[in-house]
Structures are given as structure tokens and as C-alpha cells.
């Protein structure tokens, strides 16, 4: 469950400003966030993930008030409870498929990498049909396969919430559907909340709810140098 109240955030004194009076996403709900570029979708996703902190207001994710946590606790919370999926996949080119999936367990001491985790990673890879490519260089995979590796990495810790920032933006139609299928299947099986930022209106019918940022919040005009979705 995600609950945001009286949120106020800005990049510097004269920069972009985002105000969200109230926003709730129920546990297990699948929501699409849409809106024009610069409306603050990615910023709100980063606030929800605890990557940045609001100037004012409350952000509660899975019962934890992120806005009250320090940076280290927010990082620990994020790696354990939130699965992040990115448009550019953000895989590490020097790691093979398996090591990319296991990455969350190698970068935060609050998670312990053991044989059962590796087995889970293998099973996830099998589930998205890349089980035979575990030790392959990620650069040698197709873009669809790369995004599937990124999805496995996002869900390996069994998160309550998946925050996906245009995960299908760089994929062909068949891979788009496939990625969505995987995300929805995980959310259904684990009763996880799915929030996806997208510009692709063809995908919206699959979501239970669509939040239009034009109606949700009132961002100030964005300076040209700020890059936001």
C-alpha cells in the first residue's frame, strides 16, 4: 500500500516543484501513472521509493513512513521491499545474467546471499525463459531478454511494491506484452502493488486504475535543464 499526503517537493529554490495533496494506492493494486513529460511522474516514483525525500508531507509505503527514515534505513527498506524497474534496464555490463539478478544481495548488507537465494534466482530466470543464459554476458542478450533480467533482479527479494519507470519504453510490441505479463503475474502471485509510469496508452486497459498527473498534482513549469519524465 502506498499513501502520500500533503507532499511538497522542489529541486532548489527556483527549480521544479511538485505538490501532491493526497494519493493512495491500495495493496495489490495495479496502477498506471501517465502524464506529459516534465509533469513529475519519475520524481514522484523516486519519492515513493525513498530515493529522494520530500520537503514536506508524508510518504507511507507498506506501512513504513519513508519520509521519517534516514538515508541508510530508506536504502535498506528499498532493497528489501521495493522492486525497481527502469526504462534502460540498467544492467551491469561486467556481470553475467545470474550475477545481475543477484545484485541486490551483493550491494546491501541487510540481505544475505545464500544457496536458496541463488536457487530462487535460477527459478525466476527459468520462469522468464532465460534459464539457459545464466552465465551469458548481458550485452549479448536481446533487449527483451535484458529487460527480463532486470525484472528478475527487481523481484528477487520478493518486494511488496514494484515501481516501474517506463519499463516497456524501449521494447518492441511483443516484448512489451511479455514484460507486462511477467510484472502482472508476479503482482498477482505475491499480491504486490504495481505502479508503472508509462506514455504508452495502448497498455492502459490492462491496469486497474490510471492516474493522470495533470489531475493529480500541480507542478510548476520545469526548467529546461531538469530532465524528468
Amino acid at each position, binding site marked *: 500500500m502506498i499513501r502520500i499526503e500533503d507532499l511538497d517537493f522542489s529541486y532548489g529554490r527556483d527549480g521544479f516543484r511538485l505538490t501532491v495533496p493526497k494519493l493512495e494506492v491500495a495493496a495489490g493494486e495495479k496502477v498506471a501513472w501517465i502524464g506529459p513529460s516534465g509533469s513529475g511522474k519519475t520524481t514522484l516514483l523516486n519519492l515513493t521509493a525513498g530515493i529522494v525525500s520530500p520537503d514536506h508531507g508524508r510518504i507511507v509505503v507498506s506501512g513504513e513512513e519513508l519520509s521519517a527514515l534516514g*538515508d541508510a534505513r530508506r536504502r535498506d527498506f528499498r532493497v528489501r521491499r521495493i522492486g525497481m524497474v527502469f526504462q534502460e534496464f540498467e544492467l551491469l555490463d561486467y556481470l553475467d545474467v545470474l550475477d545481475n539478478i543477484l545484485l541486490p544481495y*551483493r550491494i*546491501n548488507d541487510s540481505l544475505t546471499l545464500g544457496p536458496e537465494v541463488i536457487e530462487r534466482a535460477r527459478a525466476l530466470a527459468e520462469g522468464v525463459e532465460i534459464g539457459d543464459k545464466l552465465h551469458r554476458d548481458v550485452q549479448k542478450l536481446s533487449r527483451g531478454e535484458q529487460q527480463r533480467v532486470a525484472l528478475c*533482479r527487481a523481484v528477487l527479494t520478493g518486494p511488496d511494491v514494484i515501481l516501474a519507470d517506463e519499463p516497456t519504453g524501449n521494447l518492441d510490441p511483443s516484448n512489451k506484452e511479455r514484460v507486462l505479463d511477467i510484472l502482472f503475474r508476479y503482482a498477482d502471485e505475491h499480491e504486490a502493488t504495481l505502479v508503472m509510469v508509462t506514455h504508452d496508452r495502448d497498455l492502459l486497459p490492462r491496469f486497474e486504475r490510471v492516474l493522470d498527473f495533470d489531475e493529480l498534482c500541480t507542478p510548476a513549469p520545469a526548467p529546461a535543464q531538469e530532465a524528468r519524465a
Partner: protein
Amino acid sequence: MSDSLYLAWRYMRHHKLKTAILIGSVTLILYLPLALQVLVDRATEQLSARARSTPLIVGARGSAVELALSTLYFESRSPAPIRMAEVERIRATGLAAPIPMHVRFRVRNQRIVGTTLDYFDFRGLRVGRGRPLAKLGECVLGAAAAAALQAGPGDRVNSSSEALFDLAGVYPLRMRVVGVLERTHGPDDEAVFVDIKTAWIIEGLGHGHQDLASVGAEGRVLERKDGRIVANASVVQYTEITAENEDSFHFHGDRSGFPLTAILALPPDDKSKTLLLGRYLGRDETSQVLEPVAVMEELVGTVARVRSWVIAAVVLVTLATALTMVLVFWLSLRLRRRELETMARIGCSRRTVASLVVCEIAVVFAFSVVLAGALTGVTSLYGPSLIRGLIL
């Protein structure tokens, strides 16, 4: 930490060239001053040890350094000769045991050292293969000389001509190798030892040829007068001393006037040493006696001063390279900024980010330390002879 180390290791394996350059740079930074220190220490230690073990050197007046280097290390130019009579003069004083030294010729790049068997006892040289010198025309090789000449007992080696177009000059002598000395890790390893008389034969002071008194040699004789025979150019001179012709080898002139490059004088005690030093203080004295320790200390002092300058230069180079490395690591971090940001967005702790960088640097340094250590070890084994060659 093990996960950070693993990630750093994978990163470095993936970027092999960058990692190799970094490791190479750090290895050189560590190796250069270490090697310099080890080389100079070992070389000066060897130089001093050799000098300490040699009480006195007698030679012609002139450069003391040249005389010491030629006699101790068979390096440098040959000093002006002294006469064999000087050996008898020292022996007659009863103040020291003299060992004649003749260091002038070479077998390819290896010095021929003409001396007596006393030299082998004095230096504690032992024959590893074959036997010691016994006859004229034989030679015993130092271990390194044997390797360089690819020769062993039973082989033949030729002394080098001094002047290719000097028809009246020194001709090569073909010598039999009868033994190879055990390795001493000193200058004796590089030498070709011959008896002093063999050295004189190489110098042309003795020779062997067809017997002109025999029946059938009349055609080669130009004149016989007062027991002196003058022969024409058809007389065959031997270039190798064999069992068949060794009796024909003989010296012309008074042997007491034959040349030596130096004499090792071994006094039994300090008093004898001091007295012998006093004998050579006369103004009209054409020979000099020197204490190798004093000469080498002066030389080593010069080396130490040079080393200080070299170390200062190395420190500056190290500083410059270290700054470059800081730049390399900083640029590397900038290149990896997106990757590190992704990790942070997933939930990477700040400590992990720091430890990733530290691990990468630590792995580079660990490899470099091991490599620099190994190189320094190799340098310590083989370098002193190299730097001795450079110093001398």
C-alpha cells in the same frame, strides 16, 4: 566486504586492459625505488666484501681505482704493467705472500685471468666439474663464463686477438678447458683462469714451434751462429699447446722482466701490512701499494651519492604517477557514475559504494605489491652483477 571484493574483481576482469595498465603503473612505482635500493645495497655489499677480503694490491703507479677494479673485478682498463721481479721483491721482504695477476686478454667477452694456484686457495674457489689447472695451455672457467661460452671440460676456447691487423701483435691461443668452478656469485664467475705462464704465451712472450735443430729442418734455417738459429717465415708456430708440442714451448728473455697487471699481497698480520705499505712510500718508487677497502669505500660513497639523486628523481616520478592514478580512479568513478546511481536506486548502501572503490584500489595494489616483490626478488638475485657492470 566479500561481495564488494567480488564485484570489484568482476569489474576488473571485465576491464582487463585498464586494470593491467593500473597494475603495471603501481608495480613500477613500487618496484623502482625498491629495486634501486636492493641493487645498490647488494652491489655495494659485494663490492665492499670483495675489497675487504683483499688486504693489499701492488701495481704500477697511476689510477688507484683502475688498479683496484682491474684486480678485484677484472673490469676497467688494464693498468700499466709491473714486472714479475716485484713478486720476488715482496716475497724477499717476508712481509706478505704475493700472488701475481695478469688481467689483459679475453675469451670473447670473458676476461682471461693469469695467476697461480695460490689465487684459487686465497679466494676459496672450488672446481665443480673437471680438475684444476695443471699444464700450460689449460684453462678453468668461472661458472658464468662457462655458461656464456657454452664450454665445459674437454672443450677448447680461443683467446681473442688484441689487434686484428697487427701481424707482429698478439695471436689467439687455443686453450683446453679442464674445469669449471663452482658458482660464487662474484667476479670470479665471469673469468677464464689460466696459469700466469699461459697468459705470457698469449702475450707473445713465449711460443712453441717446429724443432729447427732436427734433421729435415735445414730448409727453414737462414743462419746458425753462436747457438742462435735464425729461421725463415715457413716455420710453423703452434696455436695450441698439446701433449705432442708442449716441450717445444719456451720463453725468450728474463722472466723477472715479464709483465703483470698487479700483485695481490697477503700479509700475515697488521704489522707486516703496515711495514709493506711503508716500503712503497719512496719518491722514486715506480710501483704503488693500495688498500682496496679504502679505494672501494670512496667509490661506494660516490655510488651512494648518485643513488640519493636517483631516489629523489624516483620520488618525483612516483608523485607524478600517483597523481595520475588519482585522476585515473576519479575518471573511472565518473564513467561509472550511472552504474553507481543505479545501485543507489536499487538500495545500495553508501558503505558498499565506498567499499567497491576501496576494493578495486586494494586489488590493484595487492597485485602490484606481489608483482613488485617478485620483481625485486629477481632483481636481488640477478641485479648485482648487472649494476656492478654499470658501476664499474
